[in-house]
C-alpha cells in the first residue's frame, strides 16, 4: 500500500473499477457499505451524527483512517435531521428528538399520495410534489403561503444547499487525505420504489396493482426520465462510478413473479438501460432476496450494473450473472454483529475462494453495516482480504 495519498487513491480506484468491469485487479477490493457503525468508531452518539453535520463527516474520516477500505459509501447519516426539523418532516424519526440518543432512525411509512392524486402526478410530478405532497409530509407547510410555511421553505432549501456543500467538501477531503474512492456517485430508484416507498406506501401500491394498474404503470413511465436525470444530476454528471440504487419492493416475496414482471421490472430496466446509454453504471443494491429474478436481471447489458448480494442465493447469482456483472457482498450482518472474528475470517475466505477467484467481485457486508457490528469483526474482514485476496 502506498503512503502517497494521490497514488493510493489511483491504486484503489483502479482496483475497484477493474472489478466493476468484471476484471481481476491486484486484489479483491474491500467496499464495505457502512453507516451508523462509523459513529461507534468515532465515539459519537447517533444523535450527534444525525444532527451535527461536522461530526457526521468526522465519523467518516475516522472510519477510513482506522480501517483499510478501498471505497466509502457515504457519511454515516444520509440525512441532516435539523433540515427535517426545519420543515417539520414527518416520515423520519431521529435519535435525540423522538428517539433515545443512540437509537437508529426510524422510517414511518404513510400513504402520502392518495389514489386520486395519480392524474396530477402523471401530468406534472414536480409541481405535484410542491403543491400537494410537501404540505402533507411537512407540518410547517400545512398552510402554504403562511409566515411559518414561507420561513420553513427558506430554511429547508438553505439547509439542503449547506448540506450539499459540506458533504461535497467532506468527501473530497476523504479522497485527498485518505486515498479512498467513493463506491458510487448519485442516487436513484426503481420507479416502483419511488412510488411505493415515499408516496403510496406498501399498502397503497399493493392495492393500486389491482385497482388502478393502468395509472400505476403510467406514473412509473413518467418517472423513468426523472429517475435517470436524478441519478446523473445528484452525481454531478460523474459517470466513472455507479449510481446507488437501493432496491426495496422488488425483493421476493413482496411481489409474486407475475407482478414483478408486469409492474416492477419494465420501468426499472428502462432506468438502468437509460443510464447505461449515458455511460452511467447502476449499483443494484438488491436488499433482501432476488433469486427468482436473476434470469430477468441477466437481460441487462453486460457490466451495466454491480449486483449487490444480500439474501439472494450467491451460487445462483454467480452462475447466472457472474462474468457479465460484478457481484458485491455478502457477509451476513448477523455474523458481523454476533459472530466471532474467526467465523468472519472463514466466511470471507470462502467468498474469496468460491466467488472472487476469477475477478468481478467486491467484498462487502450483505446489508448496510449499522451500529450493532463488532469492531473486531470488521477488522477481521479487512485482515482476511489483505491476507488472502491477492490475485
Amino acid at each position, binding site marked *: 500500500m502506498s503512503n502517497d495519498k494521490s497514488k493510493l487513491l489511483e491504486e484503489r480506484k483502479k482496483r475497484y473499477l477493474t472489478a466493476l468491469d468484471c476484471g481481476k485487479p491486484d486484489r479483491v477490493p474491500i467496499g464495505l457499505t457502512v453507516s451508523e457503525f462509523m459513529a461507534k468508531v468515532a465515539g459519537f452518539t447517533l444523535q450527534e451524527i444525525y444532527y451535527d453535520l461536522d461530526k457526521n463527516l468526522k465519523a467518516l474520516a475516522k472510519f477510513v483512517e482506522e480501517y483499510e477500505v478501498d471505497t466509502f459509501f457515504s457519511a454515516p447519516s444520509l440525512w441532516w435531521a435539523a433540515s427535517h426539523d426545519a420543515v417539520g*418532516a414527518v416520515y423520519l424519526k431521529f435519535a435525540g428528538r423522538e428517539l433515545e440518543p443512540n437509537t437508529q432512525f426510524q422510517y414511518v411509512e404513510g400513504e402520502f399520495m392518495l389514489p386520486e392524486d395519480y392524474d396530477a402526478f402523471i401530468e406534472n410530478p*414536480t*409541481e405535484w410534489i410542491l403543491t400537494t405532497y410537501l*404540505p402533507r409530509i411537512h407540518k410547517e407547510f400545512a398552510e402554504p403561503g403562511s409566515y411559518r410555511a414561507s420561513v420553513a421553505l427558506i430554511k429547508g432549501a438553505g439547509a439542503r444547499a449547506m448540506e450539499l456543500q459540506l458533504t461535497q467538501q467532506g468527501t473530497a477531503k476523504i479522497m485527498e487525505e485518505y486515498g479512498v474512492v467513493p463506491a458510487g456517485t448519485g442516487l436513484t430508484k426503481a420507479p416502483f420504489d419511488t412510488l411505493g416507498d415515499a408516496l403510496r406506501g406498501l399498502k397503497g401500491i399493493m392495492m393500486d396493482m389491482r385497482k388502478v394498474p393502468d395509472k400505476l404503470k403510467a406514473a412509473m413511465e413518467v418517472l423513468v426520465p426523472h429517475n435517470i436525470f436524478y441519478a446523473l444530476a445528484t452525481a454531478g454528471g460523474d459517470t466513472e462510478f455507479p449510481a446507488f440504487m437501493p432496491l426495496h419492493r422488488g425483493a421476493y416475496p413482496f411481489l409474486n413473479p407475475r407482478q414483478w414482471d408486469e409492474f416492477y421490472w419494465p420501468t426499472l430496466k428502462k432506468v438502468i438501460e437509460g443510464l447505461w446509454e449515458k455511460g452511467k453504471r447502476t449499483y443494484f443494491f438488491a436488499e433482501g432476496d432476488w433469486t427468482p429474478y436473476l434470469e430477468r436481471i441477466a437481460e441487462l447489458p453486460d457490466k451495466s450494473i454491480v449486483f449487490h448480494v444480500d439474501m439472494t442465493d450467491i451460487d445462483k447469482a454467480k452462475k447466472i450473472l457472474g462474468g457479465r456483472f460484478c457481484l458485491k457482498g455478502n457477509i451476513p450482518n448477523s455474523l458481523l454483529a454476533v459472530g466471532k472474528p474467526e467465523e468472519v475470517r472463514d466466511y470471507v475466505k470462502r467468498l474469496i475462494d468460491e466467488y472472487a477467484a476469477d475477478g468481478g467481485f467486491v467484498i462487502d457486508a450483505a446489508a448496510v453495516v449499522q451500529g450493532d457490528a463488532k469492531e473486531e469483526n470488521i477488522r477481521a474482514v479487512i485482515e482476511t482480504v489483505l491476507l488472502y485476496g491477492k490475485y
Partner: protein
Amino acid sequence: MTGEKPTGNVFKNLPPGVCIPWEEKLKDLGEIKGDADIIRNEWDKLELFAYLYLWYWVQR
C-alpha cells in the same frame, strides 16, 4: 396528513430538471437588453437546485 383533493397543475409535462419553464420566465422579464444566454444559464442552475430539492423528498 391533510387529505385535500389536488387542485390541478399550472404546467404540464415538464422535463426533468425544470420547475418553471424558461419560456414562462421570459414573459415576465420582457425585453432583455444584454446576453440572454448568461441570464438563462444562471436561471437553469437555480432551476436545477429547486428541482433536486423537491425530488429529494421523494427519492429518499
